[in-house]
């Protein structure tokens, strides 16, 4: 496994490279699914509908972005659900109006997420506790804290946040879409840094990364902090969309974040993939919900389709990587 993150596996035939590039595959899937949606609902191609879709998808997309960072280092982060819940009640209990207040809330959300991520990172990177177990404990504690802040759904998010963050800016772009785009760009920059490269190196082979001078524990710690900040941003966007707080808001995001990561072509065993694929994967999942609703599927079965899609995405990813590696061997 090379140290350089190859999302497109050079040297394989173009058709194979297309399948091996998770982000591109997910993008193609999104466009096809959008076509299906447009067939059911002719209004699907309007800016208003697209803005709605982006508003729906943004919280999951940012949550999945954070999850991807941890998954790349061969970990799983369950604290995601707790962080989103805490941020959701924080936004509803302490609303701050106007642009300045909105910016301050956003910074506070990032800080809350980063702090929770630091606790997980401490347990996993420096105490060597298995990531699932440690983040499970952190998640439960966070759920409790969220209940202490607000013990039932309620409260009101600042109007500036709930209006401006779900609106169209510059006359053509959904604000939520721009936030997701900003995170994608930030990731593309991060990937080129020492920290970004070591995430892949740790995931691919921790021992080798340590031997070649990567400070494994410290870099892993920062992976959890960055991931936590992403969950904080996800909670912020969720508050903008729902305009109210819910101490259990994070739970539904847990499975969906893994499904987005898998759909976006990131290997759940670490070392391969990237955030961009997960962002698009999240958009695919939320669009699929819309399509199923439009097709008249009972809401009870939406969960079944999401669980099934998660497992199918993993199976597909496995087939592709097997095909790609047998292609390399030839």
């Amino acid at each position: 496994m090379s140290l350089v993150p190859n999302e497109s596996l050079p040297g394989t035939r173009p058709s194979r490279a297309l399948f091996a590039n998770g982000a591109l595959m997910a993008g193609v899937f999104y466009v096809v699914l959008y076509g299906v949606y447009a067939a059911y609902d002719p209004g699907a191609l309007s800016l208003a509908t697209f803005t709605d879709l982006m508003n729906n998808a943004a919280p999951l997309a940012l949550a999945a972005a954070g999850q991807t960072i941890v998954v790349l280092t061969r970990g799983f982060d369950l604290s995601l659900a707790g962080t989103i819940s805490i941020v959701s009640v924080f936004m509803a209990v302490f609303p701050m109006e106007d642009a300045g207040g909105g910016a301050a809330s956003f910074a506070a959300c990032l800080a809350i997420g980063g702090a929770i991520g630091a606790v997980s990172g401490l347990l996993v990177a420096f105490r060597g506790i298995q990531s699932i177990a440690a983040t499970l404990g952190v998640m439960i504690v966070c759920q409790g804290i969220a209940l202490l802040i607000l013990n039932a759904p309620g409260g009101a998010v600042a109007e500036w946040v709930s209006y401006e963050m779900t609106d169209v800016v510059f006359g053509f772009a959904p604000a939520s879409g721009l936030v997701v785009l900003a995170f994608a760009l930030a990731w593309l920059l991060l990937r080129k840094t020492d920290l970004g490269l070591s995430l892949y190196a740790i995931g691919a082979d921790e021992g080798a990364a340590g031997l070649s001078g990567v400070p494994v524990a410290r870099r892993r710690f920062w992976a959890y902090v960055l991931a936590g900040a992403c969950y904080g941003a996800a909670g912020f966007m969720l508050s903008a969309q729902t305009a109210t707080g819910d101490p259990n808001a994070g739970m539904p995001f847990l499975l969906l974040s893994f499904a987005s990561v898998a759909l976006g072509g990131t290997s759940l065993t670490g070392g391969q993939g990237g955030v961009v694929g997960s962002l698009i994967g999240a958009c695919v999942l939320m669009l699929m919900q819309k399509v199923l609703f439009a097709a008249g599927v009972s809401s009870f079965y939406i969960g079944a389709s999401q669980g099934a899609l998660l497992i199918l995405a993993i199976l597909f990813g496995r087939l592709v990587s097997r095909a790609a590696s047998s292609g390399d061997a030839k």
Partner: protein
Amino acid sequence: MTVEATLEAPTDTRRAARFSGEALTAMGLFALSAGMVAASPLISPALGSWSQIYTILLLVSFLLVISFGQGLVILTGGLDLSVGSVMMLGGVLTTTWIGGDSATFWGVMPVVLAFGAGIGALNGIGVAMVGIPPFIMTMGVGIVTASLALGYTGGTTLGAAPPPLLLLMKGDILGAPSVIVFVLLFCLVAWTLQSRTTFGRKVYAIGSSRRAARIAGVPIVSTTILVYATSGLCATLSGAMLVGYSNGATLRMGDPYLLPSIAAVVVGGSSILGGSGNFVNTICGALFLATLESLIAASGLGQGWRTILSGLIIVGALLVQSGWISGVFASVARRVRGAGG
């Protein structure tokens, strides 16, 4: 030389070294639980009686059954996040397929249990044959199961508890509550299966080292599938028991048991990485959690504090396991000694 003998040689020495630690954990947890019951009249005068102990044992019974399956899965190095949903499915199928009719109970109950075991086996196939990470596979299957159960009932649960289950959960056998007799029998069978059979030994072997187990000729795929099927079976059984206890199925009735099932195993001192643990320890872990829960419920703390406390207990147990607590004590002791001398 048989496979048995090759497996026996290395495990024996480690078991001797581990025995004292495991037994100490179990006895410590048991003593803590007993101490909490004894001290509970201080919190509320209504507590500390035989009826409190009976309530704790009743609550422990669901947890024990579900934790045995969870413990086996954790022993292989996995995690079963579908137990809550499978438990609900067990409850829903018990009330809809059997209902208040005791005539069909003995014929249909095995079918319901087999159904749950089948879902567990599906988890095992995904994990062992396809190589999907256990907690992803079980989370996916759990969501699908819950969603299908919701769709099947249309959002409202119908039907009543079968009379034999009511008798099991609320009746008496030879003067003792029948559920306690049943759970004691269950624990005996479960302990025997885990610690006294070749199946149990294979599970330990897979958990300590998959590669070594493969070389020693342990059938990894079929054993893993059996482990997950057992977990599904246990979850379904505890769902049926809960139906007998609360006289019907409710949606999401299994969810409150998912995290405690993991906590009971981990607090009992089994490694979350697999390969070590003992069902007796899980029993003590479950007793400890249920006693604590009953005390917290009586103390009038809100749901928020209760949740925080249960999370801290899990993190604490993990820190103890990772040697942090003993490390801190050791370094404090060193410093104290250094300051004195």
